[in-house]
């Protein structure tokens, strides 16, 4: 029985089941939850999108991006500035995806065409996030504005108008609408990435992670694939930024901070790099934990988060996803053992899409 279920989970049926759960949450949660809880769930889902972006770049692209917050922040600020200037949110939303993508493309060109690899990519991306943080943090003066939108430095930009129906500036989304949009975006990004990983492009991206030289010898330009992976990750992170600015009607320079980048990395590590579902689960768990920690005063939040990160790196490499996979494989073995006795053949554990 368990063997059949796990076989189901491994095949297309698993995807279908997951899609059904996702759609169920999308339409079910607004019915069952009060407004406050729905607002909290919305921000967790926003973070899940952000986690997904790094999960793809780091886990599948193999790019050690320590500055994913740059793209998140760029998305948030682009939305905030553009929507303040334009009033209607349609184009700002598109810009909040386009600007981080373009920036990632330029940065990626700078990095990958210099044949810079692993840890040095980490240094450059981290440094770029420090630059953004320092610069945006020091734009408090009235002289720093784009159109009517003051950038606001350390204070950030308050009162950012919400997302409205396309080209209908007066129809701002209510909390339910924002949730549909956010959860819908997560589902599109998640299943989009899953689909992408089954295409030739996706397979080459993973191959580059596994062995860059071999891929090049087979005639692919590894740099191009890495660039595209980084850019795609940036686009998703930018979307998350846009949703984040919309959620709180606010964006401040801390979206660019090292702490923000660390958070994303913790989500991915705890959830499990190399999977897509892992980072999503990791981000939701950790964000929830952070909120719980804030309602008590004995345990310091960074003490707990640091400890969790240490434990996961040392004791649970591969994160929650690996634990789940091991549990599933073990269950499959057990089940397969029973099945093998009945029909006399071994199951085939371990394969995953």
């Amino acid at each position: 029985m368990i063997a059949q279920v796990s076989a189901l989970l491994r095949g297309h049926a698993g995807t279908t089941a997951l899609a059904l759960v996702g759609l169920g949450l999308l339409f079910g949660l607004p019915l069952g939850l009060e407004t406050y809880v729905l607002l909290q769930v919305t921000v967790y889902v926003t973070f899940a999108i952000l986690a997904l972006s790094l999960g793809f770049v780091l886990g599948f692209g193999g790019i050690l991006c320590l500055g994913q917050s740059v793209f998140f922040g760029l998305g948030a600020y682009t939305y905030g500035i553009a929507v303040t200037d334009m009033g209607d949110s349609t184009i700002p939303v598109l810009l909040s995806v386009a600007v981080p993508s373009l920036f990632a493309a330029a940065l990626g060109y700078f990095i990958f065409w210099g044949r810079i690899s692993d840890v040095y990519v980490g240094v450059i991306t981290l440094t770029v996030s420090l630059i953004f943080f320092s610069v945006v943090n020091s734009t408090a003066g009235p002289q720093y504005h784009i159109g009517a939108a003051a950038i606001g430095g350390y204070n950030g930009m308050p009162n950012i108008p919400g997302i409205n129906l396309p080209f209908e500036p007066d129809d701002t989304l209510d909390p339910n609408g924002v949730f549909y949009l956010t959860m819908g975006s997560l589902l599109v990004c998640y299943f989009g990435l899953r689909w992408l990983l089954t295409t030739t492009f996706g397979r080459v991206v993973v191959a580059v992670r596994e062995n860059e030289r071999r891929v090049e010898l087979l005639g692919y330009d590894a740099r191009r694939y890495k660039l595209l992976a980084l850019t795609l990750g940036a686009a998703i992170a930018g979307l998350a930024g846009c949703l984040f600015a919309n959620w709180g009607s606010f964006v401040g320079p801390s979206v660019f901070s090292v702490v923000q980048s660390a958070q994303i990395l913790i989500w991915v590590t705890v959830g499990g790099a190399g999977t897509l579902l892992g980072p999503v689960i990791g981000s939701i768990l950790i964000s929830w934990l952070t909120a719980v920690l804030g309602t008590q005063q004995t345990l310091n939040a960074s003490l707990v988060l640091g400890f969790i990160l240490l434990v996961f790196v040392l004791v649970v490499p591969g994160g929650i996803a690996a634990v789940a996979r091991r549990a599933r494989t073990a269950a499959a073995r057990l089940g397969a053992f029973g099945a093998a006795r009945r029909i006399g053949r071994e199951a085939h554990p371990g394969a995953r899409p």
Partner: protein
Amino acid sequence: MTIDRRTFLKTAAGIGAAAALPMPFVRTAGAADTIKLAALYDLSGGLEVSGKPMLDTLNYAVGEINAAGGLLGKQVEVVTYDTQSAMQMYGQYAQQAALKDRVAVVHGGITSASREVIRPVLDKYKTLYFYDTPYEGGVCDRNIFCPSTTPGQTVDKLVAYALKKFGKKVYTLAANYNYGQITADWVKKYAKDGGGEVVGTEFFPLDAADFSATISKIQAAKPDWVMAVLVGGGTISFYRQFAAAGLGGKIGVASTTFGGNGEQLVLSPKETDGIAVCYNYMETIQNPENAKFLDGFHKKFGAKYTPLYELPMSSYQGVHLWAAGVRKAGSTDRMAVIKALETGIAIDMPSGKVTVDPTTHHCILNVYLAEFHDGGPKVVQDFPQQKPTDTEAVCNLKDHPNDRKQYVIKV
């Protein structure tokens, strides 16, 4: 910070219970026979230093109210949220306070940035808000009350005093956010009004810790005194490096923030002698309310508690003002309390009389000019009942009750 075993066990049990609940239903609803007051302060992260004393004075004020029989026959319950020095947590907890915990009033927010995150949320969900912090002025919103000072109440006196005492040339060092920027503008204006001149202005991020280049630049500009509008954990480095370069005593120092976080306790008297400040409250003020307050507060929190300044005092005053409003209104209903406060309620506080100004929702209060000597402030002059003249110039909630913004005051 010390943790005694009891609070640890209590909190650990609390987390256990919270974690056992299905997420995200974290908090159990309180009993309906209390009035809930939300406290949103940074109790961890960079702003913890400011947030902890504010929460303590707030709890102390609520304790006083409860000991005297509560409000409208009910006890006041404080719901505390640690915003962890993160803006997003302010948004999250403001929503939680308004929608889930359904509190009667929210006190909190330290930086102007956090206020601007909370304010629209509480406007939207119709929950009364007290921003208990000295700030740059200009907020004009009927849902918010600001029971502390703005530059129009303190900076003018401080600049006038320093111009007379130290000389006409001033160099401003300010924190690089709107409080610092706007206060630096006021310094420029008041210096000009007093016949002085600002010879240099420099802005620093809140985490700045190395001031050596600045100290050289200050020497090159040759000012008579330095105006320090610095905020953040690194500000101590400025006073220390300034003294280490031997400039203390040679160039005067006035500050709008010094002492607020116990800087004088870390620095030696030699490094702090002569620094001029101007606040709504300091412990050395002489009056019966203050004596009574200090006595009770030190009994509860220990005599060695970091000396209190206007930041934590604002939380204390804010709670008592709100309570006075509730008593007068006979209800905790938002509009009833706002209208009661708008009658111009006045209460006697450790800092002197505090009166709500109905047109701006700021306060008319006493300010005190002091100089540091032997590690403590000595009051030089007091200015009773100062009006928030800066905000007054742009904000009139009587004529425009629907205003919902922070005006940038043209200096």
